[in-house]
Protein backbone atom coordinates (compact mmCIF):
# COMPACT_ATOMS: atom_id res chain seq x y z
CA UNK A 1 0.00 0.00 0.00
CA UNK A 2 1.46 3.38 -0.93
CA UNK A 3 1.60 6.01 1.80
CA UNK A 4 -0.93 8.12 -0.10
CA UNK A 5 -3.42 5.25 -0.30
CA UNK A 6 -2.96 4.58 3.42
CA UNK A 7 -3.50 8.26 4.21
CA UNK A 8 -6.60 8.33 1.99
CA UNK A 9 -8.10 5.38 3.87
CA UNK A 10 -7.37 7.12 7.17
CA UNK A 11 -8.97 10.43 6.20
CA UNK A 12 -12.06 8.79 4.70
CA UNK A 13 -12.50 6.64 7.80
CA UNK A 14 -12.26 9.74 10.02
CA UNK A 15 -15.05 11.41 8.04
CA UNK A 16 -17.12 8.25 8.23
CA UNK A 17 -16.55 8.01 12.00
CA UNK A 18 -17.69 11.60 12.48
CA UNK A 19 -20.85 10.97 10.44
CA UNK A 20 -21.66 7.78 12.33
CA UNK A 21 -21.23 9.24 15.81
CA UNK A 22 -22.62 12.76 15.51
CA UNK A 23 -26.26 11.67 15.85
CA UNK A 24 -25.85 9.23 18.74
CA UNK A 25 -28.19 10.15 21.63
CA UNK A 26 -26.52 10.91 25.01
CA UNK A 27 -28.19 7.84 26.53
CA UNK A 28 -25.80 5.66 24.56
CA UNK A 29 -22.59 7.61 25.03
CA UNK A 30 -21.11 5.27 27.64
CA UNK A 31 -21.80 2.01 25.75
CA UNK A 32 -20.61 3.72 22.59
CA UNK A 33 -17.32 4.60 24.24
CA UNK A 34 -16.72 1.16 25.66
CA UNK A 35 -17.79 -0.47 22.37
CA UNK A 36 -15.57 1.75 20.24
CA UNK A 37 -12.82 1.20 22.78
CA UNK A 38 -13.11 -2.52 22.12
CA UNK A 39 -12.79 -1.83 18.38
CA UNK A 40 -9.60 0.14 19.03
CA UNK A 41 -8.24 -3.18 20.31
CA UNK A 42 -7.84 -3.96 16.59
CA UNK A 43 -4.16 -3.41 17.30
CA UNK A 44 -4.44 -7.09 18.34
CA UNK A 45 -4.26 -8.00 14.67
CA UNK A 46 -0.91 -6.25 14.38
CA UNK A 47 0.28 -7.85 17.60
CA UNK A 48 -0.57 -11.33 16.30
CA UNK A 49 1.46 -10.86 13.13
CA UNK A 50 4.42 -9.37 14.99
CA UNK A 51 4.51 -12.07 17.65
CA UNK A 52 4.05 -14.95 15.23
CA UNK A 53 6.89 -14.06 12.87
CA UNK A 54 9.55 -14.72 15.53
CA UNK A 55 11.84 -12.15 13.92
CA UNK A 56 13.86 -11.70 17.13
CA UNK A 57 13.44 -12.52 20.81
CA UNK A 58 12.84 -8.87 21.64
CA UNK A 59 10.15 -8.31 19.02
CA UNK A 60 8.46 -11.58 19.98
CA UNK A 61 8.32 -10.68 23.68
CA UNK A 62 7.04 -7.16 22.95
CA UNK A 63 4.39 -8.53 20.63
CA UNK A 64 3.19 -11.30 22.97
CA UNK A 65 2.68 -8.76 25.76
CA UNK A 66 0.81 -6.64 23.20
CA UNK A 67 -1.36 -9.65 22.29
CA UNK A 68 -2.34 -10.13 25.94
CA UNK A 69 -3.10 -6.42 26.49
CA UNK A 70 -5.04 -6.03 23.26
CA UNK A 71 -7.04 -9.20 23.89
CA UNK A 72 -8.01 -7.87 27.33
CA UNK A 73 -9.13 -4.66 25.68
CA UNK A 74 -11.14 -6.48 22.99
CA UNK A 75 -12.77 -9.23 25.06
CA UNK A 76 -13.41 -7.06 28.11
CA UNK A 77 -14.65 -4.14 26.01
CA UNK A 78 -17.25 -6.04 23.98
CA UNK A 79 -18.39 -8.04 27.00
CA UNK A 80 -18.91 -5.09 29.32
CA UNK A 81 -20.69 -3.16 26.55
CA UNK A 82 -23.02 -6.09 26.09
CA UNK A 83 -23.66 -6.21 29.83
CA UNK A 84 -24.53 -2.51 29.88
CA UNK A 85 -26.76 -2.60 26.83
CA UNK A 86 -28.69 -5.57 28.18
CA UNK A 87 -29.90 -3.28 30.97
CA UNK A 88 -31.36 -0.64 28.62
CA UNK A 89 -35.05 -1.17 28.11
CA UNK A 90 -37.90 0.85 26.61
CA UNK A 91 -40.98 1.67 28.64
CA UNK A 92 -43.54 -0.18 26.57
CA UNK A 93 -41.98 -2.92 24.46
CA UNK A 94 -44.41 -3.17 21.53
CA UNK A 95 -44.79 -6.37 19.55
CA UNK A 96 -43.67 -4.74 16.33
CA UNK A 97 -40.25 -3.84 17.66
CA UNK A 98 -39.94 -6.65 20.17
CA UNK A 99 -38.89 -9.16 17.54
CA UNK A 100 -35.40 -8.00 16.94
CA UNK A 101 -34.22 -6.76 20.28
Amino acid sequence: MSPIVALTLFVIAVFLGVELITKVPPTLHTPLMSGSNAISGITLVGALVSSGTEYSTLTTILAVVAVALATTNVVGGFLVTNRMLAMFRPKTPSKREGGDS
Partner: protein
Amino acid sequence: MSSDDVIGIGYLVAAALFILGLKGLGKPRTAVRGNQLGALGMFVAVLVTLLDRDIVSYWQLAIGMAIGAAVGVLLALRVEMTSMPQLVALFNGFGGLASVLVGAASFFEAVGRGNDDLQVSLAAALTAWIGAVTFTGSLIAFTKLQEVWDGLPIPAARIVNITLSVAALGLAIAVVAQPDQRLWFWLLVAVAAVSGVTLTSPIGGADMPVVIALLNSFSGLAAAAAGFVLDNALLIIAGALVGASGLILTAIMTKAMNRTLIDVLFGDGPASGGGLDADEVYAGKVTSTSADEVAMLLDTAERVVIVPGYGLAVAQAQHAVRDLTKALEANGSEVVFGIHPVAGRMPGHMNVLLAEAEISYDALVEMDMVNPTFEQTDVAIVLGANDVVNPVAREPDGPIAGMPILDVDNARVVVVIKRSLSPGFAGIPNPLFAADNAMMLFGDGKAAVVEITKALAEV
Protein backbone atom coordinates in the same frame (compact mmCIF):
# COMPACT_ATOMS: atom_id res chain seq x y z
CA MET B 1 -6.74 -17.44 -4.19
CA SER B 2 -3.62 -16.76 -2.13
CA SER B 3 -3.68 -16.41 1.63
CA ASP B 4 -3.03 -12.69 1.18
CA ASP B 5 -6.28 -12.38 -0.78
CA VAL B 6 -8.20 -14.26 1.90
CA ILE B 7 -6.73 -11.96 4.53
CA GLY B 8 -7.55 -8.88 2.46
CA ILE B 9 -11.17 -9.94 1.96
CA GLY B 10 -11.45 -10.90 5.63
CA TYR B 11 -10.23 -7.42 6.59
CA LEU B 12 -12.76 -5.85 4.24
CA VAL B 13 -15.56 -7.84 5.89
CA ALA B 14 -14.25 -6.87 9.33
CA ALA B 15 -14.10 -3.17 8.41
CA ALA B 16 -17.68 -3.32 7.10
CA LEU B 17 -18.82 -5.04 10.32
CA PHE B 18 -17.12 -2.35 12.44
CA ILE B 19 -18.93 0.38 10.51
CA LEU B 20 -22.29 -1.40 10.81
CA GLY B 21 -21.53 -2.02 14.48
CA LEU B 22 -20.84 1.65 15.23
CA LYS B 23 -23.97 2.59 13.30
CA GLY B 24 -25.99 0.11 15.37
CA LEU B 25 -24.56 1.49 18.62
CA GLY B 26 -26.20 4.80 17.72
CA LYS B 27 -29.78 3.72 18.45
CA PRO B 28 -31.11 2.15 21.66
CA ARG B 29 -33.04 -0.54 19.80
CA THR B 30 -30.14 -1.65 17.62
CA ALA B 31 -27.30 -1.11 20.09
CA VAL B 32 -27.03 -4.71 21.31
CA ARG B 33 -26.89 -5.94 17.72
CA GLY B 34 -24.36 -3.23 16.85
CA ASN B 35 -22.03 -4.34 19.62
CA GLN B 36 -22.34 -7.95 18.48
CA LEU B 37 -21.51 -6.97 14.90
CA GLY B 38 -18.41 -5.19 16.15
CA ALA B 39 -17.35 -8.28 18.09
CA LEU B 40 -18.01 -10.45 15.03
CA GLY B 41 -15.85 -8.13 12.95
CA MET B 42 -13.03 -8.52 15.46
CA PHE B 43 -13.44 -12.31 15.40
CA VAL B 44 -13.20 -12.38 11.58
CA ALA B 45 -10.16 -10.11 11.67
CA VAL B 46 -8.32 -12.30 14.16
CA LEU B 47 -9.25 -15.50 12.35
CA VAL B 48 -7.95 -14.43 8.93
CA THR B 49 -4.84 -12.89 10.50
CA LEU B 50 -3.86 -16.33 11.74
CA LEU B 51 -3.60 -17.36 8.06
CA ASP B 52 -0.75 -14.89 7.58
CA ARG B 53 2.14 -16.87 6.12
CA ASP B 54 4.67 -14.83 8.07
CA ILE B 55 3.37 -16.39 11.25
CA VAL B 56 5.63 -19.36 11.92
CA SER B 57 4.68 -20.17 15.48
CA TYR B 58 1.36 -20.18 17.24
CA TRP B 59 1.95 -21.23 20.81
CA GLN B 60 2.96 -17.81 22.07
CA LEU B 61 -0.13 -16.30 20.44
CA ALA B 62 -2.30 -18.79 22.27
CA ILE B 63 -0.71 -17.93 25.60
CA GLY B 64 -1.06 -14.18 25.07
CA MET B 65 -4.68 -14.47 23.98
CA ALA B 66 -5.61 -16.85 26.79
CA ILE B 67 -4.22 -14.51 29.44
CA GLY B 68 -5.81 -11.46 27.84
CA ALA B 69 -9.20 -13.12 27.44
CA ALA B 70 -9.24 -14.35 31.03
CA VAL B 71 -8.39 -10.91 32.43
CA GLY B 72 -10.90 -9.23 30.11
CA VAL B 73 -13.74 -11.56 31.06
CA LEU B 74 -12.98 -11.21 34.76
CA LEU B 75 -12.90 -7.41 34.65
CA ALA B 76 -15.99 -7.10 32.45
CA LEU B 77 -18.17 -9.39 34.55
CA ARG B 78 -17.12 -8.12 37.96
CA VAL B 79 -17.16 -4.36 37.46
CA GLU B 80 -19.84 -2.28 39.19
CA MET B 81 -21.72 0.11 36.93
CA THR B 82 -20.58 3.05 39.08
CA SER B 83 -16.98 2.04 38.24
CA MET B 84 -17.55 1.95 34.48
CA PRO B 85 -15.47 5.10 33.80
CA GLN B 86 -12.44 3.55 35.53
CA LEU B 87 -12.79 0.34 33.56
CA VAL B 88 -13.05 2.16 30.24
CA ALA B 89 -9.99 4.20 31.23
CA LEU B 90 -8.08 1.03 32.08
CA PHE B 91 -9.01 -0.68 28.79
CA ASN B 92 -8.01 2.50 26.94
CA GLY B 93 -4.63 2.34 28.64
CA PHE B 94 -4.16 -1.31 27.68
CA GLY B 95 -5.02 -0.51 24.07
CA GLY B 96 -2.54 2.38 24.08
CA LEU B 97 0.30 0.28 25.49
CA ALA B 98 -0.48 -2.57 23.10
CA SER B 99 -0.16 -0.14 20.19
CA VAL B 100 3.21 1.12 21.48
CA LEU B 101 4.53 -2.44 21.71
CA VAL B 102 3.17 -3.44 18.30
CA GLY B 103 4.65 -0.27 16.85
CA ALA B 104 8.02 -1.07 18.47
CA ALA B 105 8.11 -4.72 17.38
CA SER B 106 7.08 -4.05 13.80
CA PHE B 107 9.30 -0.97 13.49
CA PHE B 108 12.40 -2.85 14.69
CA GLU B 109 11.55 -5.72 12.36
CA ALA B 110 10.96 -3.44 9.37
CA VAL B 111 14.23 -1.57 9.95
CA GLY B 112 16.07 -4.88 10.48
CA ARG B 113 14.79 -6.07 7.11
CA GLY B 114 16.04 -2.88 5.49
CA ASN B 115 12.76 -0.99 5.25
CA ASP B 116 13.27 2.40 6.86
CA ASP B 117 10.92 4.41 4.64
CA LEU B 118 9.63 7.69 5.96
CA GLN B 119 6.14 6.17 6.31
CA VAL B 120 7.42 3.47 8.65
CA SER B 121 9.61 5.61 10.87
CA LEU B 122 7.22 8.54 11.06
CA ALA B 123 4.31 6.26 11.89
CA ALA B 124 6.42 4.43 14.50
CA ALA B 125 7.27 7.74 16.17
CA LEU B 126 3.60 8.76 16.22
CA THR B 127 2.56 5.37 17.60
CA ALA B 128 5.12 5.64 20.40
CA TRP B 129 4.07 9.19 21.22
CA ILE B 130 0.27 8.85 21.14
CA GLY B 131 0.26 5.32 22.55
CA ALA B 132 2.49 6.12 25.54
CA VAL B 133 0.50 9.27 26.41
CA THR B 134 -2.68 7.19 26.18
CA PHE B 135 -1.22 4.51 28.43
CA THR B 136 0.00 6.60 31.35
CA GLY B 137 -2.76 9.19 30.94
CA SER B 138 -5.36 6.45 31.21
CA LEU B 139 -3.67 4.92 34.24
CA ILE B 140 -3.75 8.27 36.04
CA ALA B 141 -7.39 8.72 35.05
CA PHE B 142 -8.02 5.24 36.46
CA THR B 143 -6.32 5.92 39.81
CA LYS B 144 -8.13 9.26 40.12
CA LEU B 145 -11.55 7.78 39.38
CA GLN B 146 -10.89 4.80 41.62
CA GLU B 147 -9.80 7.34 44.24
CA VAL B 148 -6.57 5.51 45.03
CA TRP B 149 -4.19 8.23 43.85
CA ASP B 150 -4.79 11.76 42.69
CA GLY B 151 -1.73 11.97 40.45
CA LEU B 152 1.46 13.97 40.91
CA PRO B 153 1.23 17.58 42.00
CA ILE B 154 2.70 19.34 38.96
CA PRO B 155 4.00 22.85 39.62
CA ALA B 156 3.67 25.16 36.61
CA ALA B 157 1.92 22.37 34.72
CA ARG B 158 1.54 24.36 31.55
CA ILE B 159 5.28 24.99 31.20
CA VAL B 160 6.14 21.38 32.08
CA ASN B 161 3.67 20.08 29.50
CA ILE B 162 4.86 22.35 26.74
CA THR B 163 8.51 21.49 27.49
CA LEU B 164 7.79 17.77 27.41
CA SER B 165 5.84 18.11 24.16
CA VAL B 166 8.72 19.96 22.53
CA ALA B 167 11.15 17.28 23.78
CA ALA B 168 8.88 14.56 22.37
CA LEU B 169 8.73 16.36 19.04
CA GLY B 170 12.53 16.53 18.94
CA LEU B 171 12.82 12.82 19.71
CA ALA B 172 10.21 11.98 17.07
CA ILE B 173 12.37 13.83 14.53
CA ALA B 174 15.39 11.86 15.77
CA VAL B 175 13.51 8.57 15.25
CA VAL B 176 12.76 9.56 11.66
CA ALA B 177 16.32 10.78 11.03
CA GLN B 178 18.02 7.71 12.52
CA PRO B 179 15.57 4.80 12.37
CA ASP B 180 18.28 2.28 13.24
CA GLN B 181 19.00 3.93 16.61
CA ARG B 182 16.51 2.21 18.91
CA LEU B 183 17.51 4.51 21.77
CA TRP B 184 15.58 7.43 20.21
CA PHE B 185 12.45 5.33 20.02
CA TRP B 186 12.60 4.25 23.68
CA LEU B 187 13.45 7.78 24.83
CA LEU B 188 10.42 9.04 22.94
CA VAL B 189 8.26 6.40 24.66
CA ALA B 190 9.65 7.48 28.05
CA VAL B 191 9.11 11.20 27.50
CA ALA B 192 5.60 10.61 26.14
CA ALA B 193 4.80 8.40 29.14
CA VAL B 194 5.90 11.15 31.52
CA SER B 195 3.86 13.74 29.65
CA GLY B 196 0.79 11.47 29.92
CA VAL B 197 1.19 11.74 33.68
CA THR B 198 1.80 15.49 33.75
CA LEU B 199 -1.11 16.19 31.37
CA THR B 200 -3.70 14.20 33.34
CA SER B 201 -2.56 14.80 36.92
CA PRO B 202 -3.78 18.40 37.26
CA ILE B 203 -7.19 17.69 35.69
CA GLY B 204 -9.98 17.81 38.25
CA GLY B 205 -12.99 15.59 38.85
CA ALA B 206 -15.48 17.69 36.90
CA ASP B 207 -13.36 17.52 33.75
CA MET B 208 -13.00 13.74 33.88
CA PRO B 209 -15.65 13.03 31.21
CA VAL B 210 -13.62 15.12 28.76
CA VAL B 211 -10.38 13.32 29.56
CA ILE B 212 -11.92 9.87 29.17
CA ALA B 213 -13.42 10.80 25.82
CA LEU B 214 -10.12 12.26 24.65
CA LEU B 215 -8.11 9.21 25.74
CA ASN B 216 -10.66 7.04 23.95
CA SER B 217 -9.91 8.99 20.81
CA PHE B 218 -6.15 8.67 21.36
CA SER B 219 -6.34 4.89 21.75
CA GLY B 220 -7.93 4.76 18.30
CA LEU B 221 -5.36 7.10 16.78
CA ALA B 222 -2.53 5.03 18.27
CA ALA B 223 -3.96 1.91 16.64
CA ALA B 224 -4.25 3.76 13.31
CA ALA B 225 -0.63 4.92 13.59
CA ALA B 226 0.47 1.33 14.27
CA GLY B 227 -1.47 0.44 11.11
CA PHE B 228 0.77 2.79 9.13
CA VAL B 229 3.87 1.05 10.53
CA LEU B 230 2.51 -2.38 9.65
CA ASP B 231 0.99 -1.23 6.36
CA ASN B 232 -2.26 -2.75 7.59
CA ALA B 233 -5.47 -1.22 6.16
CA LEU B 234 -7.77 -2.62 8.84
CA LEU B 235 -5.81 -1.03 11.69
CA ILE B 236 -5.87 2.28 9.86
CA ILE B 237 -9.63 2.18 9.22
CA ALA B 238 -10.73 0.89 12.62
CA GLY B 239 -8.33 3.21 14.45
CA ALA B 240 -9.55 6.22 12.47
CA LEU B 241 -13.21 5.36 13.19
CA VAL B 242 -12.53 5.20 16.93
CA GLY B 243 -10.32 8.28 16.86
CA ALA B 244 -13.09 10.27 15.18
CA SER B 245 -15.82 9.05 17.49
CA GLY B 246 -13.73 9.90 20.56
CA LEU B 247 -13.11 13.39 19.21
CA ILE B 248 -16.83 13.97 18.64
CA LEU B 249 -17.61 12.89 22.21
CA THR B 250 -14.83 15.14 23.50
CA ALA B 251 -16.35 18.07 21.62
CA ILE B 252 -19.82 17.29 23.01
CA MET B 253 -18.45 17.15 26.56
CA THR B 254 -16.42 20.35 26.40
CA LYS B 255 -19.43 22.15 24.94
CA ALA B 256 -21.65 20.84 27.74
CA MET B 257 -19.27 22.31 30.29
CA ASN B 258 -18.69 25.52 28.39
CA ARG B 259 -14.93 24.87 28.29
CA THR B 260 -12.50 24.47 25.47
CA LEU B 261 -10.16 21.54 25.13
CA ILE B 262 -7.20 23.87 25.64
CA ASP B 263 -8.79 25.09 28.90
CA VAL B 264 -9.22 21.56 30.16
CA LEU B 265 -5.71 20.40 29.22
CA PHE B 266 -3.62 23.48 29.86
CA GLY B 267 -5.92 25.75 31.87
CA ASP B 268 -6.00 26.34 35.58
CA GLY B 269 -9.31 24.60 36.14
CA PRO B 270 -12.69 26.28 36.41
CA ALA B 271 -12.53 29.66 38.11
CA SER B 272 -13.75 29.46 41.67
CA GLY B 273 -15.42 31.95 43.97
CA GLY B 274 -16.25 34.58 41.42
CA GLY B 275 -17.23 37.24 43.94
CA LEU B 276 -20.29 35.35 45.15
CA ASP B 277 -20.37 35.14 48.91
CA ALA B 278 -22.15 32.08 50.29
CA ASP B 279 -23.43 33.86 53.41
CA GLU B 280 -24.86 36.69 51.35
CA VAL B 281 -26.54 34.34 48.88
CA TYR B 282 -28.11 32.06 51.45
CA ALA B 283 -28.66 34.28 54.53
CA GLY B 284 -32.19 33.85 55.83
CA LYS B 285 -33.53 32.81 52.44
CA VAL B 286 -33.09 29.05 52.50
CA THR B 287 -36.27 27.09 53.19
CA SER B 288 -35.76 23.70 54.71
CA THR B 289 -38.39 21.01 54.35
CA SER B 290 -39.25 17.48 55.49
CA ALA B 291 -39.95 14.21 53.71
CA ASP B 292 -43.62 14.42 54.76
CA GLU B 293 -44.02 17.85 53.25
CA VAL B 294 -42.36 16.74 49.99
CA ALA B 295 -44.65 13.69 49.87
CA MET B 296 -47.70 15.95 50.19
CA LEU B 297 -46.46 18.10 47.32
CA LEU B 298 -45.79 15.03 45.20
CA ASP B 299 -49.19 13.54 45.99
CA THR B 300 -50.95 16.26 44.02
CA ALA B 301 -48.24 16.78 41.38
CA GLU B 302 -49.19 15.95 37.82
CA ARG B 303 -45.70 16.19 36.43
CA VAL B 304 -42.45 15.51 38.28
CA VAL B 305 -38.93 15.93 36.87
CA ILE B 306 -36.05 14.31 38.70
CA VAL B 307 -32.59 15.78 38.04
CA PRO B 308 -29.92 13.29 39.08
CA GLY B 309 -26.23 14.03 39.54
CA TYR B 310 -23.27 11.89 40.44
CA GLY B 311 -24.22 12.34 44.11
CA LEU B 312 -27.08 9.95 43.43
CA ALA B 313 -24.62 7.23 42.46
CA VAL B 314 -22.37 7.99 45.42
CA ALA B 315 -25.37 7.54 47.73
CA GLN B 316 -26.31 4.33 45.84
CA ALA B 317 -29.80 5.77 45.57
CA GLN B 318 -30.67 4.47 42.07
CA HIS B 319 -32.98 1.71 43.27
CA ALA B 320 -34.62 3.94 45.88
CA VAL B 321 -35.31 6.45 43.10
CA ARG B 322 -36.80 3.69 40.96
CA ASP B 323 -39.20 2.78 43.80
CA LEU B 324 -40.20 6.41 44.24
CA THR B 325 -40.81 6.68 40.47
CA LYS B 326 -43.04 3.61 40.53
CA ALA B 327 -44.99 4.94 43.51
CA LEU B 328 -45.49 8.33 41.81
CA GLU B 329 -46.61 6.73 38.57
CA ALA B 330 -49.06 4.50 40.45
CA ASN B 331 -50.36 7.71 42.00
CA GLY B 332 -51.04 9.19 38.57
CA SER B 333 -48.05 11.51 38.17
CA GLU B 334 -45.93 11.73 35.06
CA VAL B 335 -42.25 11.26 35.98
CA VAL B 336 -39.27 11.96 33.77
CA PHE B 337 -35.55 12.35 34.42
CA GLY B 338 -33.73 15.45 33.20
CA ILE B 339 -30.19 14.42 32.33
CA HIS B 340 -27.38 16.94 31.94
CA PRO B 341 -24.68 15.80 29.48
CA VAL B 342 -22.03 15.78 32.21
CA ALA B 343 -24.11 14.12 34.91
CA GLY B 344 -21.83 11.31 36.09
CA ARG B 345 -18.17 10.72 35.42
CA MET B 346 -18.17 9.86 31.76
CA PRO B 347 -20.43 10.75 28.85
CA GLY B 348 -23.81 9.03 29.35
CA HIS B 349 -22.79 7.50 32.68
CA MET B 350 -25.97 8.55 34.49
CA ASN B 351 -28.10 6.82 31.87
CA VAL B 352 -26.30 3.53 32.49
CA LEU B 353 -26.69 3.88 36.26
CA LEU B 354 -30.43 4.50 35.92
CA ALA B 355 -30.79 1.72 33.36
CA GLU B 356 -29.23 -0.64 35.86
CA ALA B 357 -31.97 0.31 38.31
CA GLU B 358 -34.49 -0.74 35.63
CA ILE B 359 -35.55 2.78 34.74
CA SER B 360 -36.60 2.86 31.09
CA TYR B 361 -34.53 4.96 28.68
CA ASP B 362 -37.76 6.56 27.44
CA ALA B 363 -37.99 8.31 30.81
CA LEU B 364 -34.48 9.78 30.49
CA VAL B 365 -34.80 13.12 28.74
CA GLU B 366 -31.80 15.10 27.58
CA MET B 367 -31.29 18.70 28.63
CA ASP B 368 -32.48 20.50 25.48
CA MET B 369 -35.69 18.47 25.42
CA VAL B 370 -36.56 18.76 29.10
CA ASN B 371 -35.78 22.47 29.61
CA PRO B 372 -38.85 23.88 27.83
CA THR B 373 -41.09 21.59 29.92
CA PHE B 374 -40.11 22.86 33.37
CA GLU B 375 -42.80 25.56 33.22
CA GLN B 376 -45.44 22.83 33.14
CA THR B 377 -43.69 20.89 35.90
CA ASP B 378 -45.21 20.82 39.39
CA VAL B 379 -42.21 19.47 41.28
CA ALA B 380 -38.57 19.25 40.22
CA ILE B 381 -36.40 17.07 42.46
CA VAL B 382 -32.67 17.78 42.33
CA LEU B 383 -30.78 14.81 43.66
CA GLY B 384 -27.01 14.95 44.01
CA ALA B 385 -26.60 17.63 41.31
CA ASN B 386 -25.43 21.18 41.94
CA ASP B 387 -23.51 23.16 39.31
CA VAL B 388 -25.68 21.87 36.46
CA VAL B 389 -28.73 23.58 38.01
CA ASN B 390 -26.96 26.78 39.09
CA PRO B 391 -28.73 29.84 37.62
CA VAL B 392 -25.48 31.84 37.93
CA ALA B 393 -24.55 30.24 34.60
CA ARG B 394 -27.13 32.49 32.91
CA GLU B 395 -25.37 35.68 34.02
CA PRO B 396 -23.05 37.13 31.39
CA ASP B 397 -19.83 37.21 33.40
CA GLY B 398 -20.12 34.80 36.31
CA PRO B 399 -17.54 32.08 36.89
CA ILE B 400 -19.62 29.48 35.03
CA ALA B 401 -21.18 31.95 32.60
CA GLY B 402 -22.60 30.30 29.52
CA MET B 403 -22.53 26.74 30.83
CA PRO B 404 -25.77 25.13 29.72
CA ILE B 405 -27.91 24.25 32.75
CA LEU B 406 -31.19 22.55 33.54
CA ASP B 407 -33.78 25.27 34.16
CA VAL B 408 -35.30 23.63 37.25
CA ASP B 409 -36.09 27.02 38.78
CA ASN B 410 -38.89 27.36 36.21
CA ALA B 411 -40.77 24.53 37.90
CA ARG B 412 -43.54 25.40 40.36
CA VAL B 413 -41.58 23.92 43.26
CA VAL B 414 -37.97 22.74 43.37
CA VAL B 415 -36.93 20.22 46.01
CA VAL B 416 -33.17 19.93 46.45
CA ILE B 417 -32.00 16.83 48.29
CA LYS B 418 -28.50 17.47 49.58
CA ARG B 419 -26.42 16.91 52.70
CA SER B 420 -25.54 20.59 53.18
CA LEU B 421 -25.20 23.87 51.32
CA SER B 422 -21.63 23.02 50.28
CA PRO B 423 -20.67 24.05 46.73
CA GLY B 424 -20.18 21.67 43.77
CA PHE B 425 -17.06 21.17 41.63
CA ALA B 426 -17.15 24.76 40.42
CA GLY B 427 -16.76 25.93 44.03
CA ILE B 428 -19.47 28.58 43.91
CA PRO B 429 -22.68 29.04 45.93
CA ASN B 430 -25.93 28.19 44.21
CA PRO B 431 -28.63 30.90 44.40
CA LEU B 432 -31.19 28.25 43.43
CA PHE B 433 -31.09 26.98 47.02
CA ALA B 434 -32.27 30.40 48.24
CA ALA B 435 -34.95 30.88 45.56
CA ASP B 436 -38.54 31.48 46.66
CA ASN B 437 -39.83 28.32 45.05
CA ALA B 438 -37.00 26.10 46.28
CA MET B 439 -36.90 23.88 49.37
CA MET B 440 -33.93 22.05 50.79
CA LEU B 441 -34.33 18.54 52.09
CA PHE B 442 -31.09 18.01 53.99
CA GLY B 443 -29.76 14.47 54.38
CA ASP B 444 -28.39 11.40 52.68
CA GLY B 445 -29.80 11.01 49.18
CA LYS B 446 -30.88 7.41 49.52
CA ALA B 447 -32.39 7.76 53.00
CA ALA B 448 -34.28 10.88 51.93
CA VAL B 449 -35.78 9.20 48.87
CA VAL B 450 -36.79 6.14 50.89
CA GLU B 451 -38.48 8.41 53.47
CA ILE B 452 -40.36 10.34 50.80
CA THR B 453 -41.59 7.09 49.24
CA LYS B 454 -42.75 5.85 52.63
CA ALA B 455 -44.46 9.15 53.44
CA LEU B 456 -46.15 9.13 50.03
CA ALA B 457 -47.74 5.78 50.80
CA GLU B 458 -49.19 7.24 54.00
CA VAL B 459 -50.58 10.46 52.56
